[in-house]
């Protein structure tokens, strides 16, 4: 009996190894926890194309939207750890979520096998066209002077613009009145007509309005300027160096996915990030591709841990204040 069990065990082991070698033998599903058409979805689709070529199997995008992305990530984290279900998480689902969703069913740092960082989109501080400030310094002075008379728009609790906006105010030491919207579109619409004063959002959502001069931009929260907006100073240049934040996107597999498979997926992801066609599209979006050191599973694990630690206190405090 023991022999049979041992034999079965050995067989299981060898078949896993063989399985990992042959992987992938069927299409891979990548769960994107947002509706099709948003920044994370676009980045996932751009990188899925060259990945499919490298892996020799189609990487199929499945959009499972809801609750700031946590619905899709919850479902993906419970999928079989065989490498055929992976997911695209981001700053919200794997950084801000534990502070925003007290009943979260996963732990961003413990329940996943990180694959690697994909492209991220920088955050920009924008304001209505008629805003009196002309640069970031004037804007900070204005926000301090106005206090709760300032109207700060965001795209909904749990969105990137919400978390990054709360962080901005916490660093500036300002307490504006928040105007919640259900997406960047409606918020921008009211900014175009001058009803709200300022907000923070991803470059891809605001770049065309900035270029058209329909809204003002004060600074981009990245270490280097963006080729898409070469005249826009970084927050460091403009005098707010502690505000450096990006809506990073990263690929994860469910916990327990064999390391050989994770390595194959990481290899395909890295090749995808360097693919000329994908790179051109990232540039058009203003998205930033991580450097070689930032692309390993270990680097991603470290990033997730530091992001959870960074967002939790700031957001918990802000959420408690909002409920009062």
């Amino acid at each position, binding site marked *: 009996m023991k022999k049979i069990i041992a034999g079965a065990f050995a067989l299981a082991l060898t078949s896993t190894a063989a399985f990992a070698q042959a992987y992938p033998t069927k299409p891979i599903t990548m769960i994107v926890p947002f*509706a*099709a058409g948003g920044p994370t979805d676009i980045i996932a*689709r751009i990188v899925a194309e060259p990945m499919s070529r490298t892996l020799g199997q189609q990487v199929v995008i499945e959009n499972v939207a809801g609750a700031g992305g946590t*619905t899709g990530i919850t479902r993906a984290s419970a999928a079989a750890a065989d490498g055929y279900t992976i997911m695209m998480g981001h700053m919200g689902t794997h950084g801000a979520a534990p502070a925003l969703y007290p009943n979260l069913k996963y732990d961003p740092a413990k329940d996943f096998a990180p694959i690697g960082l994909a492209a991220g989109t920088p955050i920009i501080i924008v304001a209505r066209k008629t805003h009196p400030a002309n640069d970031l310094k004037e804007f900070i002075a204005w926000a301090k002077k106005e206090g709760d008379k300032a109207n700060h728009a965001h795209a909904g609790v749990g969105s990137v613009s919400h978390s990054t906006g709360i962080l901005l105010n916490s660093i500036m030491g300002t307490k504006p009145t928040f105007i919640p919207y259900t997406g960047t579109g409606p918020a921008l619409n009211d900014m175009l007509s001058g009803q709200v004063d300022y907000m923070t959002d991803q470059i891809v959502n605001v770049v*065309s309005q900035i270029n058209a001069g329909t809204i003002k931009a004060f600074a981009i929260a990245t270490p280097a300027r963006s080729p898409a907006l070469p005249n826009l100073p970084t927050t460091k240049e403009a005098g707010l160096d502690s505000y450096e934040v990006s809506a990073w996107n990263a690929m994860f597999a469910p916990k327990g996915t064999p390391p050989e498979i994770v390595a194959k997926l990481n290899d395909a992801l890295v090749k995808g990030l360097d693919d000329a066609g994908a790179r051109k*599209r990232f540039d058009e979006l203003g998205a930033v591709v991580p450097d070689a050191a930032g692309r390993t599973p270990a680097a991603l694990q470290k990033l997730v841990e530091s992001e959870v630690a960074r967002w939790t206190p700031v957001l918990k405090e802000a959420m408690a204040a*909002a409920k009062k």
Partner: protein
Amino acid sequence: MDIISNLALGFGVAFTVQNMFLCFIGCMIGTLVGVLPGVGPVATIAMLLPITFGLDPTGALIMLAGIYYGAQYGGSTTAILVNIPGEATSVVTTLDGHQMAKQGRAGVALGVSALGSFFAGCVATIFIAALGVPLTRLAQLFGPAEYFSLMVMGLVFSTVLARGSILKALLMVFLGLLLATVGTDLETGQERVTLGIQQLSDGIDFAPLAMGIFGFAEIISNLENPEARDVVRGKIGKLLPSWADIKQSTLPVLRGTFIGGLLGILPGNGAVLGPFASYALEKKIAKDPSRFGKGAIEGVAGPESANNAGAQTAFIPLLTLGIPPNAVMALMVGAMTIHGIIPGPQVMTKNPDLFWGMIASMWLGNAMLVIINLPLIGIWVKLLKVPYRLMFPAILIFCCIGIYSINNSVEDVYFTAFFALLGYVMIKLGFEPAPMLLGFVLGKLMEEKLRQALILSRGSFSTFVERPVSAGLLAVAAIMLIIALLPSINKKRDIAFQE
């Protein structure tokens, strides 16, 4: 004569063999998929997005736009034939459209809605080309306060949707408003009435609610007395509208096009109100309002034109501002972005061939839809001849696939089953679902806009009357409400005098 040279450029782009072919394929796929209950334009475009990657951006967007109109049109087909509104805008079509089908006039209803939609589409195309840019500025007058007042006006329309008791209709509107409050609180992120079910944290989806309460509930009640259903399939009647039908529909189509087109421009999804407003208007000015809800052709022609005009003019905020007014347009933003064109105010000057090519393709798409759909009417109507014992399982299966495909979520299918039971109880008690769906659709927007307006005014309700556009809308709502209630007040007075 900028507009003529611009349109010439646009037609030059749209009338290439490749783009005409893509437009045709888009319309065809859209129609076929849209007919499947539950699979609306959002699901279809999301599924087919990867196919367009290999195309040039203009061709890809022309094809996606074709899918959008096609699916919109296909949705009306299911509303008429099987009483299942795939989208908020086709709820109204079920009221008289399905009644017409029951009377053996399904072909007429489908024909009128195809022709009305084509007319509305043509007018809307010219409208966008000529006035798109100035109208954008007009739409900017609409802030949260104005949207709220517009939604209040919309709620007043709901009393007109009632076929029976106005009191019952009002109760259903309030039930709809209540259902709309389920989900995450806009401001605090607190979950409201979600019963700990994660799928409810973003609120109840429209499709499971509409499909459960309309389609599934009706199937249950049909199964109770199958004889009634078989009478329907005996009568097929003529396939195309007669001259008399077309004459009767002309003015409703014109009015519907105007109302729908105007509401469609609003960047905050005003298009939802179009068909409701058109139906309310037709019923109000009809010589015999009691015909409505029993298969009045005006109740199909007007709202269907409003629907299509609004679907078209909804492109205005996307193309001129880069702001998507609804979920489909948000997907179009994604499609444009993937193709390297980031939507915004500069698309018109930077990519004129794309901008005008898309506008020209709208007209082309509408023409193709008529060509595709008129011959299909015969096939759809024949479907009604299928024995009900074969028909209802097929409807159920397609609905379930459709609902699942929206969010890839099994829970949505369970929700539909729950709403089906609720809908069946409502039918038994004589409550109508249409006013509830209107309350539900408007409720979400209304709460959001009310709260935004009140936060912006720091809690002062006078903002709704201080802002002129908002005050005007509220005044119209008040007048309409008085007109709606007057007859019943008069009646009561008469009764009082008799005593």
